[in-house]
């Protein structure tokens, strides 16, 4: 699943840029300190001395040495660190100003091992794919349905934890359109590793279109095979965990697994693990553990024709 990168050193928002700037400044300072200290040590260890090296401990020279130690090891570092603390505060302040304000736009809920995404205004619900408008801040409210997760999209912002009993917030404000990969930043169990997500930043009009489409209930196709597939979906108890909003066979809201109302419109399966192709969808239903060991979804044994129909049904959910 190709994306447009996921390095904090290639920031795509002002927030990520100010953190990257902080890093480069700190790297410069730290690099200079490192070179200086190692250089001094190298010289001290290797310099050639006359045989009559000073082994004397006359109090005056000892005091002079101690003063230099206090200056080099105490005062200078303290001054540098005060500077770095100031940089920290300035950057923190810049990041937090965006946080003052209105209600959240989106809620992202961490699950073992996927992301539920709810657009609070429109009622659109999706999973593992967070669409954002470019050039406008989106307030994201974060919480968890089970254990602690941490929401991290390095190109847009630092990470923020999702802890039971607490909600946290991030403001994401992408500058340019693109697909940015995100990760779970807190160890959350067996499949912490492949708990990814894609953030898709789009021009505002494209985003609005997308959001409208996602908010709509599922469209019921008249295709016979799709109808059989919908039947299989119900009989195989898929609806116990997955919701499909609207349509002839509207299932009660369930959020154990991702909402599938528009599953076919998503780019990936298994939390940004594999591209969303018919082949992968089949594999995923038969044995999700082959693609993603430890995932919470059980394997489903189905006769081939029923599987084909189920896949056709899911593929119709655009």
């Amino acid at each position, binding site marked *: *699943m*190709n994306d447009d990168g996921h*390095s*904090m050193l290639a920031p795509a928002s002002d927030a*990520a840029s100010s*953190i990257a700037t902080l*890093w480069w400044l*700190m790297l410069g300072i*730290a690099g200079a300190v*490192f070179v200086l*200290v*190692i250089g001094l040590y190298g*010289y*001290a*260890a290797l310099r050639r001395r006359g045989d009559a090296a*000073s*082994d004397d401990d006359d109090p005056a*020279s*000892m005091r002079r*040495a*101690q003063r230099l*130690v206090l200056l080099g*090891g*105490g005062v*200078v570092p*303290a001054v540098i*660190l005060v500077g*770095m*603390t100031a940089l*920290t505060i300035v950057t*923190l302040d810049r*990041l937090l100003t965006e946080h003052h304000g209105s209600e959240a736009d989106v809620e992202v809920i961490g699950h*073992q091992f996927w992301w539920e995404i709810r657009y609070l205004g429109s009622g659109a619900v999706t999973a593992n794919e967070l669409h954002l408008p470019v050039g406008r801040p989106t307030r994201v409210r974060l919480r968890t349905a089970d*254990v*602690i997760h*941490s929401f*991290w999209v*390095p190109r847009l912002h*630092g990470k*923020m*934890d999702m*802890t*039971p*009993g*607490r909600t*946290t917030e991030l403001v994401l404000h992408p500058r340019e359109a693109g697909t940015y*990969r995100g*990760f779970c*930043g*807190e*160890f959350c169990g*067996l*499949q*912490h*590793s*492949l708990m*990814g997500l894609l953030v898709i930043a789009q021009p505002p009009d494209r985003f609005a279109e997308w959001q409208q489409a996602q908010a709509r209930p599922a469209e019921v196709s008249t295709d016979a095979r799709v109808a059989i597939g919908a039947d299989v979906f119900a009989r195989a108890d898929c609806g116990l965990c997955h919701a499909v909003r609207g349509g002839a066979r509207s299932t009660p809201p369930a959020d154990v697994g991702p909402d599938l109302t528009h599953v076919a419109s998503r780019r990936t399966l298994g939390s940004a*693990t594999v591209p969303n192709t018919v082949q992968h969808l089949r594999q995923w239903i038969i044995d999700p553990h082959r693609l993603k*060991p*430890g995932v919470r979804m059980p394997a489903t044994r189905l006769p081939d024709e029923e599987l084909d129909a189920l896949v056709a049904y899911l593929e119709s959910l655009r």
Partner: protein
Amino acid sequence: MSAAGPAAIAPSDAIRAALERVWGRERSFVGALSAVNHRAVATRYMVTAAVFFVLGGIQALVIRTQLAQPGLEVLGPEAYNQFFTMHGTTMMFLFAVPMMEGIGMYLIPLMIGARDMAFPRLNAFGYWVYLFAGVTLYLSFFVGNGPDSGWFNYVPLAGKSFASGSGIDFWVTTITFLEVAALVAAIEIVVTVMKLRAPGMAMHRVPLFVWSQLVMAVMILFAMPPLILASLMLGLDRMTGTHFFNVGAGGDPVLWQHLFWVFGHPEVYIILLPALGIVSSVVTVFARRRIVGYSLIVLSMIAIGFLSFGLWIHHMFTVGLPAMGLTFFAAASMMIAVPSGVQIFCWLATLWLGRPSLKTPLLYVLGFVFVFVAGGLTGVMVAAVPFDWQVHDSHFVVAHFHYVLIGGAVFPFLAGLHFWFPKVVGRTMHEGLGKLAFWIVFVGFNITFFPLHQLGMEGMPRRVYTYLPETGWGFLNLVSTAGAYLLTLGLLLVLWNVYRSARSGASASANPWNADTLEWSIASPPPVFNFAEIPVVHDRHPLWSAAAPDDAPELVGLELIDLERPRRETLATTVLDAQPASRRVLPGPTLWPMALAASVAVLVIGSMIDLWFVAIGAVLTIISMIGWLRPPRREALP
């Protein structure tokens, strides 16, 4: 013994023979189990810790192998999670702390001129607790049911609902149990340093290594209890259904994080401080001059000890706590670099003014400076809250703390190994092999861990068992894994050097390095009673100083043994200025410490299985304590 002060008459053969008899033990299996002498117990600590280091190292190598390329299947996620949990737990609890305490137990009495530690039986007890706890934890791992929620065991992932197996129960009980050993050793170290120093070794003459151990031990007393409480709460939540961390019933998972890091942050400095003490010893001896800034180094260590208790929030910057608090903890976390900086410059000045002799121990110290300064600087960076938001729990942090912990503890440990090996074993290590191994370890270490900084900034989280090929992390991971094998090769060379030097190295004189502290005033290896005559100290560097000042009181009877009624005796002195105060009579070999450790093991480890074991263990514990502590009747006294 130039240190012994006024010319004393050398102890007679009769006295030596009596000392030999009273401090020795039976050469038998039971005799071995009942040994309480500090060097016997300390050697066990160090050997056991070394075995755990090898186990933790093997886990690390398997972990690195699994991560060499995307999508490898060396380990599945279940096994991988157990591997990294055990790696962290082993290195922190079963290797680093016991190893540092073991080195202290071995060296402190030798450095302060005592014949043993203050409570020799307690020492033995601590060792058995450590052994039983470590072995029990590893049993769970070897049967494939090890703990798998990380060494930090965040709830609710480590709670019963998400970790229903017994792996976490094993972790909770054995770690609680293990803390007992660490705490017992800490009390032992504090009291020994306070009370048993040689006459004249006032606080301003205490060797820096002993100072570092003292500060470490005091920190342990304050830092470990919150962890004991936290693991007790987690155990109760898991096994009896309480709700300390259950949000649904008024609990709070973040409480666990506070308690864990209130312990966990000082823990890092607990491991670091004695290592700094080793560095001070090695720098002094190999710069061949008196240390510059003795008082500054002592004050820095005390400052680090204090400050380290005020930084724990920097492990929790991403929890979403109020911003005001974050800024305070960011500033505090940065400022702890100052006392470290002072020490770095003290050693620099000492080397600068001295005549450095670039033997293996000093090479490891220079390697330490390189790696530790780099790790310290990235530590300052992660204290910057916004940057931490990016790299927290990423491989950047993995790189950072391996620079700090391997750089800050393992490099000094290896320096100390090469430095004190002749004293402990009586043979010198091969210098050429030592240098070769150093360079391989140094280069291997940097190849392993330097690329991880970059990987972290490119988004690679910690504690992932695999990653997708399209992340582009494969190349740097491959480099890192290759480095891990090189590092392993270097460490194996060190091990080989230890093995062959112990068997056939050149035999060592009492003071092969022309070192300054008391342990070098006696034979290598030292006799079982350490000092035939308690030394008297008039200087910070006793072996480098001339005779006693004229106004020093003359002490006699320093061989301190009653030939009529020989007992184990050492001299107790006053706390600050080390004036002779009393004779401390120490106990001989006994099996009770082992019995008590086994009883407490039944109580603590049995609590996982059934409450009946708690009752049985409690009764056994009381019996063992009575057996241990029962004083003789007055009539039975001679």
